[in-house]
């Protein structure tokens, strides 16, 4: 720590002199404690960002978000014959030299164990594996020992015991180990998005070691020496609320070999961001932005932009996160003027959408640094399925048109009186809320009350059951496939957050959405794209949301840190980073 501070020192002449530094230790802060590092249960971004360096999947995403082999030998496709012509069977060949950090070799049995376990644990991302035949049986079986309640340890221990003993009720029938290095996967229906979902780092598709999990089913992931994966790094020390240390795995199986020997992470509180940044300037931290901490205080970024030393050390990276406003469309009980697909409801939704100047939002609230106006549909720019700049009619700003729609459908203003915009507090949501309030006031003459929720958890649970008439909504993509957006967010069968109740059978039935989606999900990406595009257009025609902005992440990286950075999804892997002498 002190040595880093001494050579960083805030001096303006720190340049990468070439050649590796003698100390290959990377030091940065994160803003949260781990919730869990068990791949079967992981959810938080801070956890997956770290754990992608500890666990591997059969495939992973490279820096440009392409799917590439990791533990598997190839990426299956119909071309290479690893996906059958009917699209129902996937054959996976495993590399034969893969080892866990404790030396145990990885075979097809480990894949079966890890994936069945992920489904049986019923974690938040288990639907990534839902394409496999027998998924729902194991999912149901996973409840067996947890029905009694109030005893997590018993529930977890017994489930693990049955998994380990090979109880057929806990084995997906579509998952078969043909030989020690071949896994044959039978799907319940053709699946265009499955390989992408199975590749998601630090998640349900990650491979874990049965031996270590069984030894301590509940807490194995939190202890150095017990947290075993196949990645290049492994946990070396963890002090809750304070620090995490990862060390390079000796004689790691993969290539190229990693350079960093140690990763020192300080666990900081979100309220300390400004001082974290100052500590980075003064050389205590090598970089800021890793581990899900990619939104910096705007004033700091503005200051760096006007500072000759730091200007080039700030990288802006579009993150795959879209924020929009959800209307209550499908929950008549909650009410509001936007319910249903009548001309009036649609017209009023359109009026509210057109009344918001999205470019002004990005320049005022984000200074065009931390976000960009969402003009190309729900899916963020740079991802598969992006609609193209200015393609979304809901992203337009037209105060005149908005006003005339309002006069047409709510001439005396009674429908749009007493509206509330609900959101969870924090930056930049407070600012966005104030901005929206101002826009509607200015362009429609409507006073919308603000309904802030300091408790994000309570806000989300209320939002998911359709309690708000207008609410802040958003999605950060998991894997680069349109299915991740359309399946999780909208439609009757939404696996994720169908906040608006759009296409909900209890509200206004919209069967075309569901059937188009089902068809698209079964196709390979080339055939599926036009169908997904159709869904985008349907959402746009129905005015299902108001697009607000795409998030942009900020990474501050000292020039001597080579290979660090991020794509729209995740940080670049630690094994790509090296510290140059400086």
């Amino acid at each position: 720590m002190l040595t880093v501070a001494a050579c960083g020192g805030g001096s303006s002449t720190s340049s990468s002199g070439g050649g590796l530094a003698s100390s290959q230790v990377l030091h940065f802060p994160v803003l949260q404690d781990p919730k869990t590092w068990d791949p079967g249960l992981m959810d938080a971004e801070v956890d997956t960002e770290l754990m992608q360096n500890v666990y591997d999947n059969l495939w992973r995403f490279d820096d440009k978000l392409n799917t590439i082999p990791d533990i598997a030998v190839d990426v299956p496709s119909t071309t290479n014959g690893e996906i059958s012509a009917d699209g129902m069977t996937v054959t996976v060949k495993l590399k034969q030299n893969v080892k866990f950090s404790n030396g145990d070799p990885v075979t097809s049995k480990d894949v079966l164990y890890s994936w069945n376990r992920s489904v049986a644990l019923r974690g938040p991302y288990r639907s990534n594996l839902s394409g496999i035949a027998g998924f729902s049986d194991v999912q149901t079986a996973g409840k067996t020992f947890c029905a009694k309640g109030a005893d997590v340890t018993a529930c977890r221990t017994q489930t693990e015991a049955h998994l380990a003993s090979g109880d057929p009720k806990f084995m997906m029938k579509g998952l078969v180990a043909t030989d020690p290095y071949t896994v044959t996967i039978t799907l319940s229906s053709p699946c265009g998005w499955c390989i992408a979902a199975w590749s998601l780092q630090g998640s349900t598709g990650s491979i874990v070691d049965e031996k270590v999990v069984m030894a301590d089913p509940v807490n194995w992931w939190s202890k150095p020496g017990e947290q075993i994966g196949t990645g290049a790094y492994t946990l070396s020390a963890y002090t809750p609320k304070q620090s995490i240390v990862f060390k390079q795995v000796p004689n790691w199986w993969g290539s190229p070999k990693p350079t960093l020997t140690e990763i020192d992470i300080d666990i900081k509180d979100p309220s300390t961001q400004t001082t974290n940044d100052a500590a980075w300037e003064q050389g205590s931290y090598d970089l800021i932005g890793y581990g899900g901490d990619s939104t910096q205080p705007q004033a700091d970024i503005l200051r760096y932009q006007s500072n000759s030393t730091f200007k080039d050390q700030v990288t802006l990276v579009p993150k795959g996160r879209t924020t929009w406003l959800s209307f209550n469309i499908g929950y008549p009980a909650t009410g509001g003027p936007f319910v249903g697909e009548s001309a009036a409801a649609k017209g009023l939704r359109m009026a509210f959408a057109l009344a918001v100047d999205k470019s002004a939002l990005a320049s005022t609230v984000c200074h065009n640094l931390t976000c960009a106006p969402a003009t190309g549909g729900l899916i963020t720019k740079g991802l598969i399925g992006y609609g193209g700049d200015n393609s979304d009619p809901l992203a337009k700003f037209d105060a005149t048109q908005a006003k005339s729609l309002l006069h047409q459908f709510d001439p005396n203003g009674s429908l749009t009186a007493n509206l509330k915009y609900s959101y969870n507090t924090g930056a930049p949501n407070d600012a966005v809320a104030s901005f929206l309030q101002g826009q509607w006031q200015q362009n429609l003459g409507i006073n919308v009350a603000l309904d802030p929720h300091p408790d994000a958890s309570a806000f989300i649970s209320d939002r998911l059951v359709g309690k708000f008439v207008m609410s802040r909504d958003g999605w950060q993509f998991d894997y680069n496939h349109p299915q991740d957006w359309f399946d999780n967010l909208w439609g009757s069968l939404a696996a994720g957050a169908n906040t608006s109740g759009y296409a909900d059978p209890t509200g206004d039935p919209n069967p075309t959405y569901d059937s188009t989606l089902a068809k698209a999900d079964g196709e390979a990406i080339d055939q599926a794209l036009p169908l997904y595009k159709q869904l985008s257009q349907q959402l746009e025609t129905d005015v299902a949301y108001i697009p607000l902005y795409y998030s942009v992440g900020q990474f501050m990286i000292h020039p001597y840190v080579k290979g660090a950075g991020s794509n729209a999804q995740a940080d670049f892997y630690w094994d790509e980073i090296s510290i140059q002498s400086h």
Partner: protein
Amino acid sequence: MATTVVTPVPTTEYSGGTIAREQVSLWRDGWRRLRRNKLALAAVIYLALLVLVAIVSFFWTPYKPNFIGACDTYQTPSPAHLFGCDELGRDSLSRLMAGTQVSLFEGVGTALIVLVVGVTVGLIAGYFRGVVDAIISLIINIFYGIPTLLVALVLVVLLGQGLVNIMVAISATIWMDMARLVRGQTLSIREREYVEAARASGAKSGKILFGHIFPNALGPIIVQATFIIPVAILTGAFLSFLGLGVPPPQADWGGMASEGTAAIRYVTHIVMFPSLALSVTLLAFNFFGDGLRDAFDPRQRR
């Protein structure tokens, strides 16, 4: 000291009201003494101005306090925007003016709640004594045993972030001093001859409490209430600073200071003005309270 379990607290001990004398001369004397105290007088003038600003801000501010885009974001003070602008391009002076409302409401509103609750509880405990007093004293002592700001935090999260809820939450943490003060006063006043006489002539308890005892304890009660105002404003600012103040976009000083802290390295005016306003206002209330106490209780004066 062996009778009741009492935690020592920093209430100033009052003797005002123990000497029977005409109410009118008490007030007149007090006012005369207050006017001679230059610091207190300055404080009174400042506070009067503050009230004026709060009232004016309901009808007029240089710009609309919540209007985004009144000027460039983070703009430093200029003739058009005397106190500069905040991170959303809102005029800081206008927001500072509007924030006066919140601070004054929080301070005065809390003092009123505490006044009502504390006086009622204190009168009851002191007048009825016995079991009633024992139970009330136990409750008071339990409240003294818990960390105040933490209670306020839990209550605000539980009740929600409205102005009234915040006042209730703050009141719950500071009502005990008032209750204890009134209880003590009541215990001593109820033994006086004229109270005895009223009781003997068959007056109802309510009449005795509010007709005889309360007016005689009024001096110290008012002084105590004055000291509650700055404590309430400060606690309110703490809550706002932690993100649990009045809901946005309403401007309040603690919240503005908190926003300014995030930009502290870029511009300092955003954090400076609300911090200054808060400090000077608290100072004024404290000077005023001191002056008031000296005025109503000359024996404390040195």
